[in-house]
């Protein structure tokens, strides 16, 4: 059975519904959470998460985000990761940021490729936080080697060339690359474009887990009940 990870943008659509969504994830057996910290220039994100990021930044600041993150960690017993962009960490100071998110399992930086991980790794390691490695359909053999080195509990495989959201497909070549990394003992989770049960099924048939972002945030925009219904539907797949 593959792992299911849900991405939620911190304090979106409101601080209260974010926390209630975290509770739903805990109660419905979601395996891990990715908490997005918004950035003013989210180049890896599609329209929906970009718009949500701007709205969140208008209403909250970093202190609010870390407060909600710690509340989420109290509620959610599984692994919690923070996903954001390089400058949210760098601009504040890597060590200072790492201290503020103490206790999370890992950090995912959308614009930090394998070759620039060196800049951030030390600061996070001191707090026991993994820096999650990415692979993509464009990755070459040497990239896969690089990702395996020092990888934490999973490698994040970006399913497609493009931003978050959109459609989910996996071509043969990509499936081959996922297989290569798994063959070397790494757990690989797939994200970007995963929406429905059938996508989760497909992802979990070739990898160790699936991450849903845009569609989960869109669900929560409709209300916590709609979100709960959506998560319930996904979980049924894995039971």
């Amino acid at each position: 059975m593959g792992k299911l990870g849900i991405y939620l943008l911190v304090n979106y659509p409101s601080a209260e519904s974010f926390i209630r969504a975290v509770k739903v994830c805990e109660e419905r057996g979601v395996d891990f959470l990715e908490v997005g910290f918004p950035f003013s220039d989210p180049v890896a994100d599609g329209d929906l998460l970009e718009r949500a990021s701007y709205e969140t930044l208008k209403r909250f600041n970093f202190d609010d985000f870390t407060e909600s993150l710690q509340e989420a960690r109290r509620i959610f017993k599984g692994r919690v990761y923070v996903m954001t962009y390089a400058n949210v960490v760098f601009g504040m100071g890597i060590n200072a940021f790492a201290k503020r998110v103490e206790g999370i399992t890992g950090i995912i930086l959308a614009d930090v490729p394998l070759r620039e991980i060196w800049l951030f790794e030390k600061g996070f390691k001191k707090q026991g936080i993994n820096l999650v490695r990415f692979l993509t359909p464009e990755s070459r053999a040497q990239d896969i080697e690089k990702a395996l080195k020092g990888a934490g509990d999973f490698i994040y495989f970006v399913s497609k060339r493009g931003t978050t959201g959109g459609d989910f497909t996996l071509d043969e070549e990509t499936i081959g690359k996922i297989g290569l990394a798994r063959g070397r003992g790494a757990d690989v989770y797939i994200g970007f474009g995963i929406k429905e049960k059938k996508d989760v099924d497909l992802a979990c048939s070739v990898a160790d887990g699936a991450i849903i972002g845009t569609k989960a945030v869109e669900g929560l925009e409709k209300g916590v009940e709609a979100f709960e219904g959506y998560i319930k539907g996904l979980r049924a797949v894995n039971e």
Partner: protein
Amino acid sequence: MRRWFGQYGGQFVPETLIPALDELETAYKEFKKDKRHQKELQTLLKDFAGRPTPLYCAERLGSHLSAKIYLKREDLLHTGAHKINNTLGQIMLAKFMGKKRIIAETGAGQHGVATATVSALLDMECVVYMGKTDVERQAVNVDRMRLLGTTVVPVEKGSGTLKSAINEALRDWVKNVKTTHYLIGSVVGPYPFPSIVGEFQSVIGREARAQILKKEGYLPDQVIACVGGGSNAIGIFRGFVNDKDVSLMGIEAGGTGFDLGCHSATLTKGRPGILHGAISYLLQDKFGQVSDVHSVSAGLDYPGVGPEHSSLKDSGRVKYKVCFDKEALNAFSVLSRLEGILPALESAHVLGYLLEHKETFEGKTVIVNLSGRGDKDMEILKQGGIHNG
């Protein structure tokens, strides 16, 4: 080629783009060695773009300032700015790489027009992203691009200026990386862009150095250029950076004043950060969120700056100063009336600084990089009341 300029530079982009950046680096090195392509590029720079550009002794401006002022006339190039030096180079490179499609961002529209022009010339599909605010304030350039067969995509999201246009171009590139070359218009972005753009623009400095030696028999005291992303400045500085007695100065946009959000003076008021692929000075808040910026000049309205400039600032080799909107607007009139040259508002920032700090330049020989012409700025100038004089 330099991957890092001191502690600045790097490749802070989504992992998907890394193989494309490697491919670009390899292809560029081959392109540089390829004699046939280099010759073709030189021919196009000469016969199509109009190089070498004159180094013009602006006598009336000089006597107004009590200095010897030379203008490096990049404004006389085809399409009206230095941008075409880089677009000719990069589109030839993209063709060399077998790419079929060009995407670009533009602020003032000068890079967009240059890209659209060379795309037409070399038969490439071309899409230009432009912030909505800029589409409105640089409408003439939008029309020019469309006439040249380019698709202009107005970007409404975010600030609606150059920064948002780059975000959107990066998103396009991640999606279409196999077929598309992203033609970055300044010395910004992930390696190898700052190096490639810098090399394509360095022709400005090479020419200027040879020209001043021929005209005066000595090197200038001062070389000065405006800095948004910073490509025209790097282009001219590269010709003089090893001449220790030549003082180099970059002028940033002070906008309406030094409150955050009112200016684009990245090197003067920013601190190191990561935006659009590189570590460099950045205008940002204490939480690392990129600030809103302002300049009357769309080409300078950017919160970041090329990593090479950050390094030149830290080493002290280049001094970075500020010219405010109203000083630049005034300088536009002064140059128009004294010399019969309408400068781009970007370049007018340099002249504005000279006019405001006359005493610094008294008796000196100064080369100003006049990076573009001002025809594109008529709308802004009308709103600023300049046309009524």
